[in-house]
């Protein structure tokens, strides 16, 4: 009980720097709170891995942790964000506890430089990609800035102001000076410099107040999927190809299972050994999952304009994945566009052709769901059978017209499964002219869906799993 020296278990093994294990556990706790699945076995692996790499090398340390703790791309993104924050905070907390501060850092060299010279040096450091120079210069800039009494004490605001003051140095100034040979600064290194700036400001603030700001959960923004249109399209394709697997393998395997099975000669012979080579028991070939037949009905009216680009890209991706897919667009009438998708590969042309040749708007351009169901029922529903899946993409806003929910119910009966994807948040369903409730009753599932995230969660629900990010 007295001390480590008196321990009956002998001297302890070297456990690395004091508190590393505790820090790591805390880090894992933080990862878990952000939804990364870190189990005990992952933790043990992490410790085992750290024994193999020199933990004084930051990259190896980080790489070993990443390999054992974050095992998907999404997890890696969260890991990268948290790793930076956690170990920065850990170091700062330690510094506060022990009262360590950097002497005179607040005025270091700040008065010697004027802003122009500073700009030039920062530009050079950014172009060279010199991290340590960037860090020093970030501190200089903050010092010079503080001397002019412009520091607001709020990190975000200060970064903005500094950027504005220094902003002229990055590209815009080059043309003013006529120094056109200066290469423009790319976004990536520039944002690296801003990270240094932010970090040093935080450090400054922590030192002044001697407390750590509360750690917040990562903002949704930080972890959201990339949002440029081209990447969106790729993400939609990914989600749809997942959907393909799941629709193909799930849901129908119980039905008609015993029908039309083929005898597997090899396995029957093998089973026959038990009975001395007489094939008493027949073995069957496992039934391969059938290809699902999918009918997609997509609303392209003005009330869903913002969503219809997304919907069209979903349709586009679906066509790449399923051979037995028929797609329809509708506003007041319904029109089959399967052919357009089959013959045209370019997304933009498809969108144009559909708006030109679809022939779905009559006069008003307002969606008439009731009429669409009637048309679908009379013209197409004879093709529906229990193996078919119908997916409706629309906002269920009837513009005051008759919704004909009973017709919709008939469609639902004939089809094996019917799903509804609504581009509006659930909050707005059934407000105004939305009659979602009338239709939802007859669906196997209705989902809000306007991002790839929602699409993924739809796919997961269809597969019987938990909704993503829920």
């Amino acid at each position, binding site marked *: 009980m007295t001390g480590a020296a008196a321990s009956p278990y002998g001297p302890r093994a070297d456990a690395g720097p004091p508190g590393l294990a505790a820090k790591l556990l805390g880090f894992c706790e933080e990862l878990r709170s952000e939804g990364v699945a870190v*189990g005990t*076995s992952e933790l043990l692996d992490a410790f085992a891995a750290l024994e*193999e*790499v020199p933990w004084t090398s930051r990259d190896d340390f980080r*790489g070993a942790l990443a390999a054992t703790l974050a095992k*998907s791309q999404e997890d890696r993104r969260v890991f990268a964000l948290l790793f930076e924050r956690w170990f920065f905070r850990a170091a700062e907390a330690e510094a506060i506890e022990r009262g360590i501060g950097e002497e005179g850092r607040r005025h270091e060299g700040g008065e010697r430089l004027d802003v122009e010279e500073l700009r030039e040096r920062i530009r050079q450091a950014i172009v060279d990609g010199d991290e340590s120079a960037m860090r020093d210069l970030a501190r200089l800039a903050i010092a010079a800035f503080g001397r002019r009494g412009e520091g607001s004490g709020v990190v975000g605001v200060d970064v903005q102001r500094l950027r504005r003051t220094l902003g002229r140095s990055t590209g815009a100034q080059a043309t003013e000076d006529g120094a056109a040979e200066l290469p423009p600064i790319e976004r990536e290194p520039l944002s690296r410099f801003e990270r240094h700036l932010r970090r040093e400001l935080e450090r400054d603030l922590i030192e002044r107040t001697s407390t750590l700001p509360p750690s917040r959960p990562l903002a949704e923004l930080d972890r959201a999927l990339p949002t440029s249109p*081209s990447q969106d399209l790729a993400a939609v394709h990914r989600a749809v190809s997942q959907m393909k697997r799941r629709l193909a393998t799930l849901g129908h395997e119980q039905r008609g299972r015993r029908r039309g099975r083929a005898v597997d000669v090899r396995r029957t012979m093998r089973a026959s050994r038990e009975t001395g080579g007489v094939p008493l028991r027949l073995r069957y070939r496992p039934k391969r999952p059938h290809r699902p037949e999918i009918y997609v009905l997509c609303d392209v009216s003005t009330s869903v304009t913002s969503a219809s680009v997304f919907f069209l890209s979903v349709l586009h991706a679906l066509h790449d994945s399923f051979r037995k897919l028929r797609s329809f667009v509708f506003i007041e009438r319904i029109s089959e566009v399967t052919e357009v998708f089959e013959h045209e590969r370019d997304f933009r042309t498809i969108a144009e052709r559909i708006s030109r040749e679809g022939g779905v708007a009559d006069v008003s351009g307002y969606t008439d769901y009731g009429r669409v169901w009637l048309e679908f029922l009379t013209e197409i529903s004879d093709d529906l059978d229990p193996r078919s899946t119908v997916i409706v993409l629309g906002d269920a806003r009837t513009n005051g017209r008759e919704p004909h929910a009973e017709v919709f119910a008939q469609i639902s009966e004939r089809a094996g499964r019917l799903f509804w994807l609504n581009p509006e948040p659930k909050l707005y369903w059934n407000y105004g002219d939305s009659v979602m409730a009338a239709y939802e009753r007859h669906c196997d599932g209705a989902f809000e869906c306007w991002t790839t995230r929602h699409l993924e969660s739809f796919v997961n629900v269809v597969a019987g799993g938990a909704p993503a990010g829920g």
Partner: protein
Amino acid sequence: MDEAPTPRSVAETKEALAAAGYLADEPAALVSFLAQRLGKPILVEGPAGVGKTELAKALARAGGRELIRLQCYEGLDEAKALYEWNYRKQLLRIQAGGESGWEEVHDDIFAKEFLLERPLLQAISSPDPVVLLIDEIDKTDQEFEAMLLELLSDFQITIPELGQVAATTMPIVVLTSNNTRELTEALKRRCLYLWLDYPELEREMEIVRLHAPELPEALARRLVEVVRMVRALDLKKPPSIAESIDWARTLLLMGAEDIDRETFEQSMSIIVKHRTDIDLVAERVGMRLAGAPTQAPG
């Protein structure tokens, strides 16, 4: 259990891989090193054509190990992946030994002799250390993954009639996935995770020059720059590293000195292989290359 030499440091692993013709980046070298030290499988994910399979091959060459490869596909079952009883031979044995007692025959026909070893069992029972590559694991279904769990965590396989077959030497197991579906948590838990992405400009240049040594440096740089430009577009199938290398060799054969618009258009089909992609690339990248007489002045 372990006879194969394990590397002592990350740098050593990296050098060994380089000697085997694979220029690994830091994470790849680190994970390969850890996998050998900790005896854990590596799960490699990343876009197609960044050298996931090649990493396994290089590990085999570097360690002087045999490479055993299991290519996954939809519908792959344990009879093709693990083992199968050679029932024809068993039937023959039953018929041939007509007068011997049933007990004797029964013990006899479930001996090793009647076992057909498939890649996984082969890797486990091999007397020499091996590299086991399970390629494109995401193509199989989740049931198959579950079957792999025993192998991945304990390096053993249970055959009901024979008992457990445990590995005599520690194999390096590499699983690759193109990320077309989420793998199960249980599988991931047993593996070290490595994300391979398209390499940095400098490293891809080294790789290209390693495989096409006669290519002048300036041309290699230009080539990699163009390939990166092409990758930045939203293509159905972005060019892989292997295609960069193919293109480099093509340029050598063509005797090209520089990549101008004409050479690019002639040889573009080496790196871009979809009709819509070709149109897009010709429009976006081809236009930016110098040297064409039709290019607008200024």
